[in-house]
């Protein structure tokens, strides 16, 4: 599988927001640990800037977005950049499924935040698997 066919992960860029931190932590876990060969990280800020490489990445591969709040900046920017959002995760929705993992902190997430990020990362990883199964055979094996 070449770089271009990896599923793009675009997390929230909400600075100073706990849920934004959870979204980014989850994204890092996906691309660094859980699905390093199947995913690539694209910075939301690069899409906002109109960076050509970032725009090409989202235009050429299905994207999974992780939004920290209902403004859904990640999803909207991917769409505005010509990309296709295969699945959008909202941290709040995920937290509602894992109430015991209460996130706190910004620069450093508490234990609950770390656990929530892990749970979110695992859901995103599953979504990557689902997306790749739906890709045409030729693309997956290229």
């Amino acid at each position: 599988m070449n770089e271009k066919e990896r599923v793009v992960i675009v997390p929230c860029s909400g600075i100073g927001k706990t849920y934004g931190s959870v979204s980014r932590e989850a994204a890092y876990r996906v691309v660094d640990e859980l699905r390093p060969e199947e995913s690539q990280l694209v910075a939301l800020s690069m899409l906002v800037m109109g960076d050509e490489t970032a725009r090409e990445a989202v235009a050429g591969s299905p994207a999974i977005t992780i939004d920290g709040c209902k403004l859904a900046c990640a999803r909207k920017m991917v769409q505005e950049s010509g990309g296709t959002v295969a699945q959008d995760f909202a941290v709040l929705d995920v937290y509602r499924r894992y109430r015991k993992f209460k996130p706190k902190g910004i620069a450093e997430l508490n234990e609950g935040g770390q656990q929530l990020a892990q749970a979110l990362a695992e859901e995103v990883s599953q979504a990557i698997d689902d997306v790749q199964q739906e890709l045409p055979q030729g693309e997956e094996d290229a």
Partner: protein
Amino acid sequence: MADYLEYTLDKFTFKVATDCLYSPAGVWVRAEGDRVAVGVSDFLGQRSGDVAFVDVVPVGTVVTAGDELATLETIKVDIELPAPVSGIVAAVNEKLEMEAEVINQDPYGEGWLAIIEAGDRPTEQAGLLSPEAYLEQMKREALEELGE
């Protein structure tokens, strides 16, 4: 269908339903005979952020005005909501258990918290504000929040 007073500050517009009274804490009260429906004002909901979870005291609980009626856990803060009137909790909005977001989406309708049997003249209890008075309080709080 309720009418609203509105206040816009920066990118936010806050609605105050005119068929309700309000506690200073931002809990609305709508009289329905000897019962009152209570909920969270649009301003309090927007100020507090998206609601993740709501816990309302059980049906049958006797509350005195000022007692804890519910707790909200939002993406920003945890809030204890005081009962705006005294009485017996006759019903709680079970929808909130699975869809707490309706508090933000429809604060004066589907997002109601509880029904309280409050006896005669339930809203004639001390401390409740008219919509106009609450609007003025809300303006002050909103301006303070934005540091103006």
